[in-house]
């Protein structure tokens, strides 16, 4: 879903937002380690990862966080802002795994021309549907998005 489609979707407590799917790769995990100067072998050395009890190298916890942040900022759009993100990594994801992120609106608070929306987020592994990360985010958006302007779209 594009940012403009997000901005047409209704903002109601209990609404499930459109999911985001991200295919990770060993190249991505390597680049992320390089960009963050993360030298931990668990992210690039399969022999080491196997010795630690994993089938292969792992996605970094901060890369999980970055994907969740991206999901929130995409939903917030140009006029919105990510205020906070709290997350807990519950299961590992192997580099190469497809990660699916989905959010549910759990609270909406109006403050003048802005609205603060709480999103409950889950990131699951595409291979088996297991939850890798649970998170809660606070996102500020223009209050005009609460007006139910569905832009002529369904529902």
């Amino acid at each position, binding site marked *: 879903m594009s940012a403009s489609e997000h901005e047409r979707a209704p903002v109601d407590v209990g609404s499930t937002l459109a999911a985001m799917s991200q295919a990770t790769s060993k190249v*991505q995990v390597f*680049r992320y380690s*390089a*960009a963050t*100067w993360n030298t931990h072998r668990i992210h690039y050395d399969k022999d080491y990862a196997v010795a630690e009890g994993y089938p292969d190298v792992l996605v970094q916890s901060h*890369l999980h966080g970055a994907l969740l942040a*991206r999901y929130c900022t995409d939903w917030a759009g140009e006029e919105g*802002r990510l205020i*906070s993100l709290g*997350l807990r990594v519950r299961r590992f994801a192997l580099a190469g795994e497809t990660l699916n992120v989905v959010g549910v609106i759990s609270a909406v608070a109006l403050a003048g021309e802005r609205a603060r929306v709480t999103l409950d987020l889950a990131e699951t592994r595409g291979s088996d549907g297991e939850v890798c990360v649970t998170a809660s985010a606070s996102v500020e958006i223009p209050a005009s998005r609460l007006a139910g302007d569905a832009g002529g779209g369904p529902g």
Partner: protein
Amino acid sequence: MAIDGALIAGLQAQVGVEHVELLGEISAEMIGRYAAAVGESNPLYSDAAYARSRGYADVVAPPNLLAAVINWGPGAPYDRLRDDGTEAEKHLPGVPSQGVRVMGGGEEMTFTRPVVAGAVVTRSTVLAEVGERSGTQGPMLVLRYSDHYRDGAGAVLMESVRTVLLR
């Protein structure tokens, strides 16, 4: 070293002690590389002209960049890396570099101000809380570290509260 009275006393002595570190300047190149690694397509992170059209002086960092960088310096010589590739001398205040198992227990980030390229960032770290918990594999300590990232003017850019589990 196991979870014992000496370790707990050492940690409690660190509670509230502030450790300040100058991380350096956040460059547009660093931001661009981080955004590319994540797979971001938001032009705010890569297109200075677009960022200026949105009211920023330069490109803006993705929200969790500051928290994600593991090492802000050049890195230790190879003979001072652990078997797992991490630095032997980089450790959390109060936590010994060997003998305990350190696990991440979650992170809560609050993004107060945008991090714009050119910002010179300082981080202060405080061990805020030491808790004990009995786990299935013996005693466990639950530590909460509070990191504040500030710009050159001292304004808070971001706060991160990390939960760290020791076993």
